């Protein structure tokens, strides 16, 4: 287990380092002067000079990289050159919106998808199983940004049930929840199908195992066999998928945030791409990547910790 955990953590660190390297190269690999790219054509000579000094642009590239790296590792992501505000703070302000959206979006998908998958595995080929199958394929086939657009069209514009844009009044929790419903619905919908399919397949596999047959032949009640013994094992691949799913949602929230004009890291990156504000893009992309890597790492470690088979196969 320790060997695996070390190896997996090492991989995560490598990925984050590659990300840092890529983001560092962002300003240096492309042709042109990094200052004018970072500051844009509007910069005055004074701003340029100050920026060069602040960003150590007159030092050798290797030194610059290590400064960038050590700053990034200590949480200093630089300063937005126009507003003079710390990038870490700018991203930090937007992060909670994205996290809430991703948690709620994946949360309702888990709460609905896992029971659906379970029930259809317990009674394969029943009506419920067929309906679940159709729902799964149907929801997987519609890309999440399209779900967002269509949900906006139907529920906000046509039926007028939901607010169209924004995240709601800051002090009004109910209003915020009201604003959260559509985006969370839109980004979670595809995952209902994924999760239901995965749980169903893995449940059916587990239900054929000897220890389940043994538990049954001992006369244990069906409910206990299914939920106490089968689900416990069948849920493992789902944990991996939830880890990946959460990371995907974190990144995929870009679409929902833009379409519903919600604040969040995705919207922030998009706006900064549009205004070509590179220091903020660097910081926001780095934080998103690091969180994504961290979450998938945790999911993999949990699975290895719960499931001895995974541990052994990896050694």
């Amino acid at each position, binding site marked *: 287990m320790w060997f695996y955990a070390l190896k997996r953590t090492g*991989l*995560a660190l*490598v*990925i984050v380092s*590659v*990300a840092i390297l*890529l*983001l560092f190269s*962002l300003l240096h690999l*492309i042709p042109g002067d990094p200052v004018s790219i970072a500051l844009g054509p509007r910069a005055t000579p004074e701003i340029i000079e100050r920026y060069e000094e602040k960003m150590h642009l007159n030092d050798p590239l290797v030194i610059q990289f290590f400064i960038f790296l050590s700053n990034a590792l200590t949480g200093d992501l630089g300063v937005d050159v126009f507003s003079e505000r710390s990038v870490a703070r700018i991203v930090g302000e937007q992060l909670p919106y994205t996290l809430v959206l991703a948690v709620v979006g994946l949360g309702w998908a888990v709460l609905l998808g896992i029971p659906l998958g379970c029930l259809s595995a317990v009674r*394969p080929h029943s009506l419920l199983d067929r309906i679940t199958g159709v729902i799964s*394929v149907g929801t*997987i*086939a*519609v*890309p999440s*940004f*399209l779900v967002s*657009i*269509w949900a*906006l*069209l139907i529920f906000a*514009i*046509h039926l007028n049930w939901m607010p169209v844009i924004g995240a709601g009044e800051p002090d009004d929790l109910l209003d915020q929840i009201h604003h959260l419903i559509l985006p969370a619905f839109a980004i979670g919908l595809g995952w209902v199908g994924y999760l239901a399919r995965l749980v169903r*397949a893995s449940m*059916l*596999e587990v239900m054929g195992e000897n220890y389940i047959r043994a538990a049954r032949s001992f006369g244990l009640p069906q409910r206990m066999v299914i939920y106490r013994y089968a689900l416990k094992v069948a849920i493992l691949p789902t944990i991996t998928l939830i880890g990946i799913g959460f*990371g*995907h949602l*974190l*990144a*995929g929230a*870009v*679409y929902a945030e*833009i*379409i519903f004009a919600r604040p969040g890291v*995705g919207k922030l*990156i*998009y706006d*900064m*791409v549009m205004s*070509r504000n*590179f220091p903020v*893009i*660097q910081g926001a*992309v780095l934080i*998103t*990547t690091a969180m*994504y*890597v961290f979450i*998938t790492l945790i999911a993999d470690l949990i699975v290895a910790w719960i499931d001895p088979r995974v541990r052994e196969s990896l050694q």
Partner: protein
Amino acid sequence: MSEKASNKDDKVVSAERAYSKRREAIQLFFSNTQGVVGLILVILFFASALFAPLIAPYDPYQMDIPQRLSGPTRAHIAGTDQLGRDTFSRVLYGGRVALKIAAIGVSIAFSVGLLLGMIAGYGPRWLDNTLILVFDTIRAFPTIVMALAAVALTGPSMELVMIIVIVIAIPGFGRLARTNTLAIKNHEFITAERSLGAPPVTILLRHVMPNVIGPLLILAAMDVPVVITIEAGLSFLGLGVLPPTASWGTILNEGYLVIRDTPWPVIAGGIPLVLTTLGFTFLGEALRDVFDPKLRKDK
């Protein structure tokens, strides 16, 4: 019977067997409703994209301001956009962009992934470990976010979309090719070739490749909708294919801006995306069921 004749008989028998196997596979495929629906949708996608200039009732770039934002009418079956262009014609031409990106993107990713995967599986251990690390690293990135960063640098273009799509798709093909290469690497026929002195390149291209390529083709079918969705998504954000080029993403983008005035562009721009995704997913799953019973989902 002479030895020669019996050899010939063997050949005839094995050819017959291969033929009946193929017929069985075709029968199995056509008894799969999902597979047939998928095949029809995929053919529709190809045909509508290839023959768009023949089918489209209007020039997709021809403006008709007085007719702007109309709903479906007899003249414009999917309505018109904010410039009075015929949405149905634009959707058909958008299919050409999707087809181009999918065809080029998937085939390059397929070839590179196949090659790297076979090298990883057949080559020395350190090379294998390095390639696996590269694949895993690419897969561990949040793709949309990295794509946004890349667009920020170079500005949006179709070439960039293509590169993003290829980089994202390579690890899947590479991993699969590697696993399959590892599985047959120590089979007798490979060992025999090796001991006869065949160079690694010959072994990989002549003997390994035909045996690992099948599952990769299924993956290719399943990757097409992924690629098309990425293109549409980036173009929707205004970071991929740019207006006035008609792509499903730009139709959705322009439709989103006028969504309060007319729902038709976002409906018409989205439906082909859903149908194509369904088609390739159904087709890929049916092919997997037919050719790879080991991977078959419980039925």
